[in-house]
C-alpha cells in the first residue's frame, strides 16, 4: 500500500518502515533522520495546523514548535506510521493549547491567500470551493475539524484518529458521522 496525504507520494510503507528501523538503532534522532522525516511530513503538518487553527501565521510558529517537541521527545517508534501519528498527536496538542490561550480572541479562518488562488492551473470554481470550505470549517468545533481533516484529507484510520485526538476508538465512527453530516450540509457540494 502506498501512503498518501501525510507521507507524500514517494515511498511505500515497507520502505518507510525500513528507514524507521534504521532510526531506531539510534538513541536520539540524528540530523539526517530528522531532516528526512521533516522533508516528508512538514508540508502536510503545516496544512493540518493551518486548517485546524484557522490561522496561517500561527501555523508557521506551531510547525516549528511541533518538530522541536518531537525531536526533544527522543523516542523510538515501531514504524514510520507510529512516528507520523506521534507527530500529529504533538501537533494537535500544541494547536489546542494555542487555541485555548487565544480563546477570547476572534478566530481567523485560514482562507486561501491571493497567491494560492492565482495559480495558473487553478480554476476559479476550485478556488471558490476552497474558500467555501474554509468558511464551513470555521463553523465546526475544533475537534470536528481535526477529525475530518485526519480522516478525509490525511486518510487516517479510526484507530489512528482516536490515538491522535485522545478519544476512544469506538466513539470515532459516530463523531465522524456527525461532523461529516454537518460539514456536508454547510458545503452543499455536488457530485464530481
Amino acid at each position, binding site marked *: 500500500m502506498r501512503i498518501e496525504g501525510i507521507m507524500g507520494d514517494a515511498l511505500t510503507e515497507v520502505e518507510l518502515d525500513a528507514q524507521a528501523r534504521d532510526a531506531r538503532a539510534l538513541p536520539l534522532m540524528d540530523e539526517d533522520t530528522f531532516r528526512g522525516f521533516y522533508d516528508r511530513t512538514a508540508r502536510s503538518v503545516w496544512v493540518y495546523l493551518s486548517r485546524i487553527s484557522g490561522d496561517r501565521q500561527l501555523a508557521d510558529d506551531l510547525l516549528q514548535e511541533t518538530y522541536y517537541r518531537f525531536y526533544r521527545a527522543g523516542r523510538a517508534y515501531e514504524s514510520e506510521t507510529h512516528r507520523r501519528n506521534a507527530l500529529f498527536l504533538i501537533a494537535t496538542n500544541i494547536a489546542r493549547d494555542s487555541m485555548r490561550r487565544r480563546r477570547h480572541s476572534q478566530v481567523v479562518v485560514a482562507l486561501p491567500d491571493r497567491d494560492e488562488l492565482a495559480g495558473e492551473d487553478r480554476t476559479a470554481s476550485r478556488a471558490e470551493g476552497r474558500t467555501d470550505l474554509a468558511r464551513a470549517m470555521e463553523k465546526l468545533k475544533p475537534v470536528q475539524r481535526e477529525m475530518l481533516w485526519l480522516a478525509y484529507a490525511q486518510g487516517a484510520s479510526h484507530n489512528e484518529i482516536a490515538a491522535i485526538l485522545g478519544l476512544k476508538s469506538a466513539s470515532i465512527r459516530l463523531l465522524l458521522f456527525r461532523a461529516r453530516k454537518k460539514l456536508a450540509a454547510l458545503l452543499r457540494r455536488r457530485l*464530481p
Partner: protein
Amino acid sequence: MNCPRESEVLDALTTARWPDELHAHAGGCALCADLVAVAAALHEDLQDAMHDVVVPASGLVWWRAQRREREEATRAAARTITLVQTASVLGAIAVALTILGGVSVMSDTWRDWLAGLTSAVRFESFAVVPQWNVPLMLAAAACLVLAPVALYFVVAEK
C-alpha cells in the same frame, strides 16, 4: 450511519475513477453524498495546499532545534546553580546559627560553672564572663538581618 460502500467511494475519490454503477449509487445514497461532498473538498484542499505551501528548510529547523536545546540546557544549568547557591547560603546560615547557639549554651554552662567557681573561690573578676554573650548575640542578629539580603541577591540573579 455508514454506507457499506463507503470505502469504494473513498477509493473512487482518491483515484478519480468512478464506475457508472458506483456513481449512480453515490448519487442516490444520502450517506455517500455527504461523504463525497466532504472528502472531495478536503482532499482537493490538501492537494492544492501541498502544492503551494512553503515550509522552512529542514536544515534551518534542525539548526533552530539544536540552538533552542542548548539554550534550554543553559537555563536548566543556571537554575540548578541558583538552587545550589541558595541551598549553600541557607545551609551556611543554619550552621552559623547552630554554632552560635552551641557557643551560647556552652557560655551559659561555662558561666554557671565559673560563677560556681567564683562563689567558691570568691574571685570577683569572673563576673565579666556573661558579657561574652553580647558580641555573639550581635553576630547572630547580623546573620539574621543579612541572610534575607544574601538570599535576595542570589535569587535576583535569575
